[in-house]
């Protein structure tokens, strides 16, 4: 089924596909799930695909010549093909299965970073990165004495692009940025960043953990060198994610983990690595999860990413408007036109933990804390925020419920 943008996403029909959305968190209290930025819910199609694999085709992949092994291998590799197509990759050998975004970034830091970065080289990051795009570089910085620079975040929650230009003069070897902030929702101008970074000879890694689930992302169009993302944030299972890397880069990189599957030949004292992408997939991978990921991609493709993005834009615009009317609430991040469907806020006099606890008593699942972005919270002088995030299955009515829930928080803390 192909779709056109003129046709809106039918959210009520989509909700039918997600069993968990029918549950109550306590008798008479239906779930309002506003925490998809942490992890998304899963449609029946994904759950079934994984079950089917276990019920019918479970076998270890590659090398086996029996029927089940052939089926399992075919399904695993088909998932890779689907993902490649989904992000505009021409050769599926550029798609490496990993556990999650975090592992993908660590793979690049460990393998590419250790080989190609020398003492005194610079890596350019931003102040809005998730810890998973900070700590691997900090570890490398300690080990190799490389230098880290940060594109500042403005008070509106946008990257300071003038400062970016200045930092480019320092000739970073790598620019590693998130495409969408998991706290502010800011959508960064990735194409502009990659083009400018390439002009100074830098390689660009994009943290796509939040962007790939919510926006159409095409690595060729955006000229991305490395892209990291996780299945669990895009309707798929936990335990599987992807590192996309341009072929020349991946070819030049040494293996990450050693073991079975990543080798071509092994002697007692030496080995030769396997071809891409297997060179980076040591050991038995998450087979069922890869197949589930493939089913999630099918689902998103069928809905259409343009429509997902348009629906979320509608919801976040509506939410920002409604929330900005609540007295005592402070919202962080840019306006709806520059962000995805994420809003972080604080309520005067009430700790974010207490906000989310009282919302939970009304079935509303939001998140409280620093959302794995402590430096960003420090920048705004906040120990923590409460975050509500939306996906293709959320409705305007759920935004209304959030608003009512916050009214109750105010009442309790009076």
């Amino acid at each position: 089924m192909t779709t056109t943008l003129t046709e809106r996403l039918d959210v009520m029909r989509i909700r039918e596909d997600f069993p968990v959305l029918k549950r109550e968190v306590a008798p008479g209290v239906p779930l309002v799930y506003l925490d998809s930025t942490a992890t998304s819910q899963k449609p029946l199609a994904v759950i079934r695909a994984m079950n089917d694999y276990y019920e019918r085709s479970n076998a270890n992949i590659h090398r086996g010549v029996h029927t089940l092994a052939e089926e399992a291998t075919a399904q695993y590799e088909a998932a890779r093909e689907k993902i490649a197509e989904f992000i505009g990759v021409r050769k599926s050998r550029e798609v490496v299965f990993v556990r999650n975004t975090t592992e993908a970034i660590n793979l690049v830091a460990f393998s590419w970073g250790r080989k190609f970065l020398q003492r005194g080289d610079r890596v350019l990051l931003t102040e809005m990165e998730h810890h998973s795009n900070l700590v691997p570089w900090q570890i490398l910085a300690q080990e190799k004495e490389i230098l880290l620079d940060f594109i500042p975040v403005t008070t509106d929650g946008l990257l300071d692009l003038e400062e970016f230009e200045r930092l480019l003069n320092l000739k970073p070897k790598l620019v590693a940025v998130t495409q969408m902030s998991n706290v502010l929702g800011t959508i960064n101008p990735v194409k502009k960043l990659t083009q400018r970074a390439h002009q100074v000879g830098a390689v660009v890694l994009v943290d796509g953990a939040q962007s790939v689930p919510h926006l159409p992302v095409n690595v060729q169009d955006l000229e991305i060198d490395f892209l990291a993302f996780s299945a669990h944030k895009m309707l798929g299972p936990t335990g599987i994610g992807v590192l996309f890397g341009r072929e020349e880069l991946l070819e030049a990189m040494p293996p990450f983990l050693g073991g079975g599957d990543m080798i071509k030949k092994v002697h007692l004292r030496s080995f030769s690595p396997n071809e891409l992408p297997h060179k980076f997939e040591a050991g038995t991978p998450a087979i069922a999860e890869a197949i589930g990921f493939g089913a999630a991609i099918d689902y998103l493709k069928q809905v259409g990413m343009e429509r997902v993005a348009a629906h979320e834009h509608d919801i976040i615009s509506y939410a920002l408007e409604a929330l900005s009317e609540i007295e005592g609430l402070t919202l962080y991040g840019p306006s709806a036109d520059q962000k995805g469907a994420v809003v972080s806020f604080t309520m005067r006099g009430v700790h974010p933990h207490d906000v989310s606890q009282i919302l939970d008593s009304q079935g509303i699942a939001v998140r409280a804390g620093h959302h794995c972005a402590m430096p960003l919270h420090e920048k705004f002088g906040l120990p923590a925020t409460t975050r509500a995030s939306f996906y293709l299955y959320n409705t305007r009515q759920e935004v209304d419920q959030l608003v009512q829930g916050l009214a109750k928080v105010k009442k309790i803390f009076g």
Partner: protein
Amino acid sequence: MDDLYREIIIERYKEPLYRGVLEPHDISFEDENPLCGDHIRIDLRVDENSRVVEAAFSGHGCAISQASADLLLESIIGKTLDEVKQLSKQDVLELLGIELGPVRLKCALLPLKVIKAGVYGLGEASDSLVEE
């Protein structure tokens, strides 16, 4: 669930009796909950018999952690340091009068963890101080 926000908790959160710092003090310790960034410092003064005579807490956190700190300090005034060392998770839950899931339990127990680390004179607070 709403029982979590019993009157006493909201009251002690909004108008704590033991908020502040003691300078000088005999014992002071601070720590945070890395999951949520809650930060608590506790200062104690003790007399020659090792009885707590004054106590104060500072820092920031949710209603549960703040109320827990306030009620806990109230309860240890007059106790000897050896008695303070005996305090357990159960004592804190009784003071608060609520039941908590694993995440919020951390909030409730942070003050006790800080007090015990201070009283034992440890370099670092550890969760084992407040486990059963």
